[in-house]
């Protein structure tokens, strides 16, 4: 049997990150500075280099390697850059937070990079095995990050819950994948697709497999009825980690869903899109209605995430290129909004004070008009009010769903987003209409403050000029899924 060396260039970003990670792991042992500034810088630098490699590598062509287990195309490039940007930003946002809570150990940075590596593998995976590998690498790093605050029983409980439910979801997913493997005889997504197209696969086994796969994906996305872990984990985890869980992994999960459902199982679109319809409506309903009752902003944003996932599914279940590119736009914008939202929570917190009650936002306009304005933009963007970009995110998935004939689903979606706008408005109300209850000045690193400002203004600028990002999403989905 001949061994041929696989083509390594498409996987260059992953290879580089792994190498950089190992270096950081060793270098960190010799960092004496309790603030670990060197580790922080190295981490950010390696993310930047990764971004450069990914962009240089992107060619618009679909390249397979490692015997078809790995793919690199425009969609992977865009989503990976999205992940780097998310991680880069959140590390800046959380630097002060982790310093003041004794979380600032080398592990925080290395685990972040391991999770990033896992997400990159997920995004580029083209086989059930690679997908699962990436998913587990990401999840295990995240479980550990949630538990990083060892003396906090809330965080420990959250980590336990996250781990048990995450493992259950992985189990469901694996079981579903094994069914698909049984029916098609392959783990390679392209071959799975061919087998289904040829009509030789047993449809009953396939649909049975899809049910488990969708359930597993539902867990990972946090869609109702598989959402129970989301509020508790978001609430219990340190805010820096919550931000991590809430932002970049959703990009990876999106790629994951798209590869399996739209890549491998496209001919069965009718079956899985019906399942997603139920998940979407329930997520939007439960997410938006339950969020109203929350007094803790992290829990509120958790339920808001659930409802956003409902909207994301709305794009995916349209089952065509238009829907996928809308969903991709949605998930990118969602990640940006979440970064800003939790970034603001971290900005307002200080030693011994988490700023995670929504009442902590009272009178922010009187204390700091600029931060209040940034938060206002973020909240209106999450609610989907123009001229912020959240409107275009919602608009594009709605038009995709309407185009594929889901009229009542769209009407339900707009009504739930009306309900949802209430709790975002309430934050604006607290910031602008109420008197402050805390007078302490907001202390934050200058870089975090500036970046957060850019983050907020980006909501407005992207909302006024959404074309380039939308076109990028449309183009990358087109080049990745044009075969269908």
């Amino acid at each position, binding site marked *: 049997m001949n061994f041929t060396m696989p083509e390594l260039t498409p996987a260059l970003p992953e290879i580089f990150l792994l190498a950089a990670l190992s270096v950081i792991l060793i270098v960190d042992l010799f960092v004496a500075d309790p603030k670990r500034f060197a580790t922080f810088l190295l981490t950010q630098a390696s993310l930047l280099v990764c971004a450069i490699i990914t962009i240089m590598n992107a060619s618009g062509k679909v390249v397979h390697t490692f015997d078809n287990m790995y793919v690199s195309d425009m969609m992977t490039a865009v989503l990976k850059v999205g992940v780097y940007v998310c991680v880069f930003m959140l590390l800046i946002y959380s630097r002060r937070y982790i310093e003041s809570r004794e979380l600032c150990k080398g592990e925080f940075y290395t685990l972040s990079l391991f999770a990033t590596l896992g997400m990159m593998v997920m995004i580029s995976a083209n086989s059930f095995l690679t997908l699962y590998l990436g998913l587990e690498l990401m999840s295990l790093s995240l479980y550990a990050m949630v538990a990083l605050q060892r003396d906090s029983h809330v965080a420990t409980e959250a980590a336990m819950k996250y781990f048990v439910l995450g493992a259950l979801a992985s189990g469901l997913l694996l079981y579903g994948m094994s069914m698909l493997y049984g029916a098609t005889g392959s783990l390679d997504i392209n071959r799975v697709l061919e087998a289904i197209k040829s009509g030789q696969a047993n449809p009953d086994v396939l649909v049975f497999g899809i049910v488990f796969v969708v359930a597993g994906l539902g867990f990972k996305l946090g869609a109702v009825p598989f959402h129970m872990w989301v509020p508790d984990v978001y609430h219990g985890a340190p805010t820096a980690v919550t931000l991590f869980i809430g932002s970049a992994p959703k990009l990876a999960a999106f790629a994951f869903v798209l590869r399996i459902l739209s890549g491998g199982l496209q001919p069965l679109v009718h079956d899985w899109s019906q399942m997603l319809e139920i998940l979407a409506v329930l997520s939007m309903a439960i997410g938006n209605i339950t969020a109203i009752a929350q007094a803790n902003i992290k829990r509120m944003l958790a339920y808001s995430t659930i409802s956003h996932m409902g909207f994301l599914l709305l794009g995916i279940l349209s089952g065509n290129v238009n829907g996928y590119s809308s969903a991709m736009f949605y998930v990118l914008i969602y990640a940006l909004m979440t970064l800003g939202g939790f970034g603001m929570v971290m900005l307002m917190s200080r030693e011994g004070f988490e700023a995670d009650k929504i009442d902590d936002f009272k009178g922010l*306009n009187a204390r700091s008009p600029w931060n209040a304005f940034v938060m206002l933009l973020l909240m209106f963007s999450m609610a989907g009010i123009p001229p912020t970009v959240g409107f275009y995110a919602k608009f*594009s998935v709605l038009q995709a769903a309407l185009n594929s004939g889901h009229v009542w689903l769209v*009407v339900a979606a707009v009504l739930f987003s*009306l309900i949802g706008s209430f709790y975002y*408005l309430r934050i604006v109300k607290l910031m602008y209409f109420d008197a402050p209850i805390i007078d302490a000045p907001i202390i934050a690193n200058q870089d975090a403050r500036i970046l957060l400002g850019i983050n907020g203004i980006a909501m407005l600028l992207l909302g006024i000029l959404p*074309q380039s990002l939308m076109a990028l999403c449309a183009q990358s989905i087109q080049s990745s899924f044009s075969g269908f």
Partner: protein
Amino acid sequence: MILGIPLLSLVIWLPIVAGVAVLATGGDRNANLARMIALVGSVLGFIVAIPIYTGFNALQGGMQFTELQPWVERFHVNYHLGVDGISLWLVLLNCFTTPLVVIAGWKVIEKKVAQYMAAFLIMSGIVNGVFMALDALLFYVFWEAMLIPMFIIIGVWGGPNRVYAAIKFFLYTLLGSLLMLVALIYLYHQSGSFSILDYYKLPLSMAAQVLIFLAFFVAFAVKVPMWPVHTWLPDAHVEAPTGGSVVLAAIMLKVGAYGFLRFSLPIAPDASHALSGFMITLSLIAVVYIGLVALVQSDMKKLIAYSSISHMGFVTLGIFIFNAIGTEGAIVQMISHGLVSGAMFLCVGVLYDRLHSRQIADYGGVANKMPMFAAFFMLFSMANSGLPGTSGFAGEFMVILGAMKANFWLAFAAASTLVFGAAYTLWMYKRVIFGAVANSHVSELMDINSREFLFLAILAVGVLGMGLYPLPVANIMHASVNDLLLHVAQSKLQ
């Protein structure tokens, strides 16, 4: 475009840029600077709008001064602007009102001055965008964006129950807008574009037209507001600061009626005809029933708010009788109502700034202490009750004439507003202004100062001018209204 300057864009963006500049002045230490920039910005905003009027060709239907730029190519959305004889007046009214609001809030607003002024300037630009947008998505973006500054205005500078009013206002209007969005997306998929003018030619089945009409109806009826979705208005009006009430009454209510003219009628003409009975009934309920409700109010602002709803019932009535004089009457009524209700709210604001009460019972005999103010208030009250010679008369008379053409009893019911309008307005006027000085607070009242005189006098000139010589107003909209009625008369069924 004139001389290569995109005039309409200038009218939209100049106030917004001025608003951002006002915001940049920061805290209340620079309050005077903020006021000055706001005044200059709003006056410039009005000045740049004048060439639209002078350069407008009244003989031509269609859109003028059009601007077309690709905006979001992925969905074929264009930055497409234009004005016709209908929107022209509403743009002018809006640009005219903004400086008055700035002047009215000059001394009264003491906290967060920059934010207050900026909110009004930005809103002024956005509302201009609503009236000028010829692309449905661009329209929608402006339409919704309008909510944000108004929400802040009511909630930050409003009365005691402001938070409730602000949230009610926002959610109520958002509900309507979202259904409109669904209708717009549907139209996009049918026609492949977001151009409003393309929708005019798009054939649609009756079922589709009815659904589209209803989706638009919810959006626009809430804004007008029509009975029974009017309940947000008295709350919002009463709690808003004076400037907010003025903008709500003079401008915000007009966007709903404008929506009917720009969207519902030409896009779904068959459904409009089929449902005109329904619309006329709602309008008459607003005219008669809300007129009676206004009669029993004890709060001046609430009374004027209900009177606004009643007057807007007249506007929707004029629109849905589908003849030229009725439609033109409706538009004249919109402009007139913009001037008159704005003036009424400013008058109440003048009293409120002195005694901090809006209750009719707290006043009495004000004429003894504020003769100049009493004269202005008299003029505006007369205009509000539709006295000939004031602008209030012109519009109402035209609508009644139009209604008479359609059906005598319709005109009869509509004309009752002349009685109710006179009753509630003049009765309030009598209780507040005439009689003996009611209490020690009233006896300490000072007459209006020069700043207040300025904005009341400007409005008085407008109200009288339009009442004595309404012809130019009606002339400019002739061609556009005929165009519109042509669209409405053509069936889109195949």
